[in-house]
């Protein structure tokens, strides 16, 4: 399923997040972190509310999961927001996963 919508100019780009509300999303922040949680709300500045969130820290040694719970991510730190396919996510074997961590954003 792909959400491609023609956005009204009055609402702004942020309204593209509307179909993601109450679904599990993955947020990539400017410092290279990956936060996964349920999108509970957002605003025009792309400040995001994540419920039951955890951070996935990737490294060549393995993956670490840090629980954060309820959090607000400030919009100017958000680089990417993506919808998580939960079925596909369950199939990932994190114990065997090795990856280089993302680098922080450079302006």
């Amino acid at each position, binding site marked *: 399923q792909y959400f491609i919508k023609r956005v009204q100019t009055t609402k702004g780009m942020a309204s593209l997040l509307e179909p993601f509300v109450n679904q599990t999303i993955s947020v990539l922040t400017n410092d290279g972190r990956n936060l996964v949680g349920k999108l*509970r*709300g957002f*605003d025009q500045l792309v*400040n995001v*509310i994540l419920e039951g969130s955890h951070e996935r820290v990737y490294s060549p040694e393995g993956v670490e999961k840090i629980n*954060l*719970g*309820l959090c*607000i991510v*400030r919009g100017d730190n958000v680089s990417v927001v993506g919808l998580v396919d939960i079925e596909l996510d369950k199939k990932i074997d994190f114990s065997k996963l090795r990856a280089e961590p993302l680098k922080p954003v450079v302006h």
Partner: protein
Amino acid sequence: MLPLSLLRTSQGHPILVELKNGDTYNGYLVSCDSWMNINLRKVIHTSKDGDQFWKVPECYVRGNTIKFLGIADEVIDLVQKEEQAQAQSSPAPRGRGDSRGGRGRGDRGGRGGDRGGRGGDRGGRGGERGGRGGSERGDRGGRGRGERGGRGRGQ
């Protein structure tokens, strides 16, 4: 649910603030505003590397320096209760009230602009009256015209 309304609801509760520079502030949220500026009490400030700690009774954090906020889980239940209370107390009529307010402001703004334009016209007419007055009086009128003419015609 709007992020800033969640923040406002979490006033009085413990909060974790991570700044863009990596420092963390753990304390009770006293107040916040629409720019996400926040006021904390009983704060423990930890440096980015986790090697330095400060105990700060009160502090103010400017909104634009914040990376993210960690909120106590109990707050989300409070928000849901507040949303239910708001839904009950404000039915449809509020929407009509807002549209009236919007149109009213728009109309007044437009008329105000027209008044400014008419004021300019009045200034021009005043100058013309001065010119006619000068022609009847002779010399004084002539000098008056010359000076005014100079400004107007760019001599």
